[in-house]
């Protein structure tokens, strides 16, 4: 991680992005009702985005004053923010969300659990399969039976 006074890789760029985002948020807030009055729907969003803008400028100022991170190169930033494991797992979760409408919640959950436990735990596919099935069974009992949540079924099975 970082020592109190040094920056994390990419922290200055992140602070700059926050300033830009706050500016965009303020503009979008202004678009709601402009400066038409003190009780319009846009006042609180403008106040909140204004606070975001001011604090983001302070964050940027602090970032510019602090010494650079030891590895502030693009490769260092990518290594810090996007470790391969996080990227692949996020993509897998994205795929899980994408297949829920067709596969249904429980089969999609089973798939995500199986692949991720197999890849992350590295104890072999049998353990991963057993744990995935047990977990899916527990989720079914807890949510479908106990809480009566109607989990998405999936278009493939209709």
């Amino acid at each position, binding site marked *: 991680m970082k020592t109190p006074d040094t920056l994390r890789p990419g922290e200055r760029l992140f602070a700059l992005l926050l300033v830009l985002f706050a500016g965009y948020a303020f503009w*979008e807030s202004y678009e709601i009702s402009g400066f038409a009055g003190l009780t319009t729907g846009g006042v609180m969003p403008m106040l909140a985005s204004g606070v975001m803008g001011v604090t983001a400028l302070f964050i940027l100022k602090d970032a510019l004053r602090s010494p650079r991170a030891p590895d502030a190169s693009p490769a260092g930033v990518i290594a810090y923010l996007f470790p391969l494991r996080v990227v692949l797992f996020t993509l897998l979760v994205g795929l899980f969300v994408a297949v829920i409408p067709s596969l249904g919640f429980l089969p999609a959950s089973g798939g995500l659990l199986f692949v991720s436990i197999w890849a992350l735990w590295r104890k072999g596919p049998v353990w991963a399969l057993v744990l995935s099935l047990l977990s899916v069974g527990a989720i079914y009992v807890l*949510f479908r039976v106990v809480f009566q949540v109607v989990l998405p079924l999936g278009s493939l099975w209709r």
Partner: protein
Amino acid sequence: MMETLGYFATSWTDPYLLLITALGTFAGIYIGAIPGLSVTMAASILISFTFKWDVNEALALIVGVYVGGVYGGARTAILLNIPGAPSAIATALDGYPLAKKGLAGEAIGLSTVMSVMGGLVGVLALALAAPLIADFAIKFTSRDYMLLGIIGILLVGTLSGESFAKGAFAGALGVMIGMIGLDPMTAETRFTYGSINLMGGVPFVVAMIGFFGVAQALVQLEHIDTAPIKQKVSRIIPAWSDVRRYLGLGLKSSGLGTMIGALPGTGGDIAALLAYDQAKRSTKNPDVPFGEGAKEGLIAPETANNAAVGGAFVPMLTLGIPGDAVTAIIIGALYIHGLKPGPLLLSDTPHLFWFIVGNLTLANLFLLVFGLTGIRIFTKVVECPRAILIPLIIILSAVGAYAIQNNPVHITWALAFGVIGYFLIRYGFQVGPIILGVILGPMIDANYRRAMIGAQEDIGTFLYDLLSNPISLVLTCALVLMFLNQLPFVKNRKRRADQRV
């Protein structure tokens, strides 16, 4: 008197009600503890299938889940650094460092005893001082609620994280997320970009699941190869000396929690944060610094949030105004059963009031039993390899987000919030203020506009009102002091003074 005692003991003497209360409390602990599940969500789902039950049975179950759930949120805060509920955000600040030191069992044991103490103080306040507290709460005006909301967000921003600017940014971001949807006053769309789904707004549970559940899971992927923390749970029952030592702090935090809980719209989350802040200020020489495993930092929020439960019932039962989200759901349950919470409820249906008081007391006693006996099994959860736990957290987060309104889009939102939260956490931001912003943002917005309308849209009158009303003045001063405390020269002076001590 005997009649009142009879009402009070209804759920103690009826075996069926006794069982339902026990089941509710037990389930509440685990619902509150499981990341992705919330007591609000559970209570709202329970309403849907208990409306055919007798009102006492429905209330016994929901009250049990409520009491257990508020406490249960602390467990994951201590063991996983993932607060199960907003009221456990402050608990994680010192609870998790204690767990990392191998003192998870002791931390949970102490938090259990103190939670029960806080809960009982809250119930006592509900029973004895309900009319007085309600009288005080009713004096609060819109601008006071607005100030209280802002203080709540800034408080968590200053308490956690590495800088005030980052905390305030996160809080304001949360308020922005809370603004998404139709403006409740004018039905104007705000940040919906033409999406029908966004018109209904972002449920705070979805944001909470995303920022706490998914984001933490992504951050923890980095540590997947590290051995899981083996929690030392050799002593579950806290030492009597510890209980005696922190009794004063517990009672003080309980009083504060009850007061905050009794303020409509506020709940265990603000109570816990204020109690943590109060403990931090009043404890001059803690054995361990705050944020590194100070027991005071664990006890104060835990007693306060459970005390807030009793407090939250005060405005609900006497004024018909919910103290927090769960009491709002309970109001719905009472309406379903043909009862109208409000000033007449106490005089027309005293049996209901005393039944709730008795049931809350009973649920707290069950909490003590289940809280102290289930720790060993529960702590095994953190010994589960992260490679199994992380995918499970994602699945629970997905089902939790979906279950709020049976809307699959909420799963996507929770995951999107998770990715945003991941980047923010990597750059030293805390996600607690974001969640409080989402929850309190709409309340601040509505109360600001009411106050401004009351001031005839004149800024001068609005500012004069802030300074001329005693309650508003105290809250404004508190807010100004919070800002002043963050000024560099004040911080440097305090640091120098601490070094001298």
